[in-house]
């Protein structure tokens, strides 16, 4: 992908025109030049200062001009490959490739039997990681649950520790503390045989604080990711009407400002550091003061800023496939479907969200296995209609003629698996009679059984003994460090 190039945008769904993108981009530049952005972090301010930016040290405001933005965008890689724990290429973050992973950092987990929530434990996260590894259309792990059985101060690294010990797929994660990131990188280095910068297996989310601020921790996380050459996903979270303008356009402008400021910092620290153009915006629910992730406007903002990321020629990310429902129900199904499908049509490279309900606060294993099917359908959708001489089947139609059938044609056998997405038992397509014989279960009951089946049939994929030992040591040290 070229930088600043509209021909990068080959998305099947384009909510913004070329002119719209130009206007949003120039508005963002105007804000970065005139108003600037706040970095509540001494090192960040020092870096900007030393590199000739206009910095107000007292107000912690940095002004960034168009030239610096252009330079940063040009330096940032337009393609990032993420590897799995075995060192195999897994995610090719470029063009319109779409990969799904669960919504991360849930503070609750849903108990499907009672529909009550509870605090997740390490054991829950281990189970969760086994399920993710077994699902074909969930391509990456996330540190999905904030486990409650370890002290909060070390829970960021502890989540990663559990995933690394049990699962193979690449990981979308993030640190809650400055030290956390260093420990997490240490663990990743061990697992990758010290090849982390060459073969990254994890992506770190770094979130600016809207409007127009970077906290001390996230600024530092961003700087450190760049130093380590570890992929960082910039995740602005503007809230339309509350911490961003109520207009979707205004929210997208602010999102652009926050994302660009992060890209500039990362590229000054380490030119060429891998950066993903991400986000987790939402509209503000003006009646209840909540942050609906399943709102159509939230999804529209996601699908729009991703086009801007594509215009810049960067890999993109978004938070889609979540629902605001409190349980796994029809609302959970349709809100997640809309996000998963529109995100795929936009060609967003990393889509985080499946499994999540209750805004961004609760994970459900049952919803995750349902969402996996939606992801499978979305991936089929973006494969599109294959038009070739063979697929048009003129000769075959001629041969079969009026009144015949195609069931016993070789053509049918050759094409059926390529043409049809074959769902799991999550989706019911039986005749009513068979459905009744199979105890007339609804989708949620089936999901429950599939979760149980996956956990019965799959074990966690243990790490090599020496590596596991080395990870244990890091975790034990961090326990000691904080006096536990």
């Amino acid at each position, binding site marked *: 992908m070229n930088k600043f190039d509209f021909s990068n945008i080959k998305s099947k769904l384009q909510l913004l025109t070329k002119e719209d993108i130009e206007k949003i981009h120039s508005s963002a530049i105007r804000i970065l030049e005139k108003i600037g952005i706040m970095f509540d972090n001494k090192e960040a301010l020092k870096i900007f200062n030393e590199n000739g930016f206009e910095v107000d040290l007292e107000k912690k405001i940095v002004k960034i001009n168009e030239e610096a933005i252009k330079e940063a965008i040009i330096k940032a890689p337009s393609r990032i490959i993420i590897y799995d724990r075995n060192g195999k290429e897994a995610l090719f973050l470029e063009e319109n490739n779409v990969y799904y992973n669960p919504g991360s950092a849930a503070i609750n987990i849903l108990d499907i039997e009672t529909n009550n929530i509870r605090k997740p434990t390490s054991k829950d996260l281990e189970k969760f990681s086994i399920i993710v590894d077994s699902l074909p259309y969930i391509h990456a792990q996330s540190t999905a649950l904030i486990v409650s059985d370890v002290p909060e101060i070390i829970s960021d690294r502890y989540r990663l520790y559990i995933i690394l010990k049990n699962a193979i797929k690449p990981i979308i994660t993030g640190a809650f503390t400055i030290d956390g990131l260093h420990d997490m990188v240490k663990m990743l280095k061990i697992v990758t045989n010290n090849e982390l910068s060459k073969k990254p297996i994890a992506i770190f989310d770094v979130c600016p604080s809207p409007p127009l601020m970077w906290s001390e921790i996230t600024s530092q996380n961003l700087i450190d990711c760049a130093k380590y050459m570890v992929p960082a996903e910039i995740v602005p979270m503007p809230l339309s009407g509350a911490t961003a303008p109520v207009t979707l356009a205004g929210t997208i402008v602010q999102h652009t400002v926050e994302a660009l400021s992060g890209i500039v910092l990362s590229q000054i620290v380490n030119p060429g550091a891998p950066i993903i153009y991400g986000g987790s915006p939402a509209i503000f629910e003006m009646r209840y003061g909540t942050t609906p992730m399943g709102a159509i406007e939230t999804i529209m903002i996601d699908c729009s800023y991703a086009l801007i990321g594509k215009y810049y020629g960067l890999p993109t990310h978004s938070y889609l496939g979540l629902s605001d429902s409190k349980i796994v129900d029809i609302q959970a199904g349709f809100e997640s479907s809309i996000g998963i499908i529109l995100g795929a049509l936009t060609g967003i490279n990393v889509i985080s969200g499946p499994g999540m309900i209750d805004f961004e606060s609760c994970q459900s294993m049952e919803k995750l296995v349902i969402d996996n099917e939606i992801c499978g359908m979305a991936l089929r959708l973006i494969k599109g209609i294959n038009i070739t001489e063979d697929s048009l089947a003129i000769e075959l139609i001629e041969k079969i003629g009026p009144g015949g059938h195609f*069931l016993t044609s070789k053509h*049918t056998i050759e094409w059926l698996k390529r043409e049809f997405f074959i769902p799991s038992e999550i989706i019911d397509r039986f005749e009513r009679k068979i459905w009744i014989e199979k105890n007339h279960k609804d989708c949620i009951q089936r999901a429950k059984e599939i979760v149980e089946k996956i956990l019965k049939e799959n074990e966690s994929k243990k790490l090599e003994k020496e590596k596991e030992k080395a990870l244990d040591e890091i975790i034990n040290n961090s326990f000691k460090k904080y006096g536990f």
Partner: protein
Amino acid sequence: MSNLILLNKIVKSIIDLNDKEVKELVEEAIKIGISPIKIIEDGLSKGLKEVGLLYEKGEYFIPHLMIAAEIFKENIERLKPLLSIEEKKDKILGRVLIGTVKGDLHDLGKNLVAIMLSINGFEVIDLGKDVPTELFIEKIKEYNPDVVGLSALMSTTMYEQKNVIKALENSGLRNKVKVIVGGAPVTKEWAEEIGADGYAENAIEAVKIIKNLLKKNDEK
């Protein structure tokens, strides 16, 4: 090539749905003197069973089943003349005459039933689609089947099923043959109303019901 290796090759080429190869291998098996019963049991039937298992596992689909059944049927036809009368009787569960009733051009469901029945060891006489009542009667007299299957996809043509049953009664054939009905608009209630012996929702069900009907027959 030893007999066992050859038979296993037949199994494999049925699984691969390679009709040409199955045909060649069956010829070879006949030539080297493997008994036709053995070719059917340890070659063709075993292969078909494997295809059925792959279907159950979700690796194969209805088209695979149908192609395998066609290969099976074609080769059974080749071997049938070589079987003794006793063996023939032994091998065939029953004779089913099947067709889509008059005025109805839909035969996909009926074809599926015919194939599932062949897979399960029935001899199937398929009269095709748009079959007039008189032809059903004529062919029943000719073939003397154990079961007649009447298919109708449209609610307008399903009344023809009733007409066929009436015609069977009028010609004194009704007690000599079991009648099952099927098709999208057909229900269990309709089957009872028109005096059919059975009703099946789908092809797999049809096989079960026919097996049951014939079992009852034997018990009598």
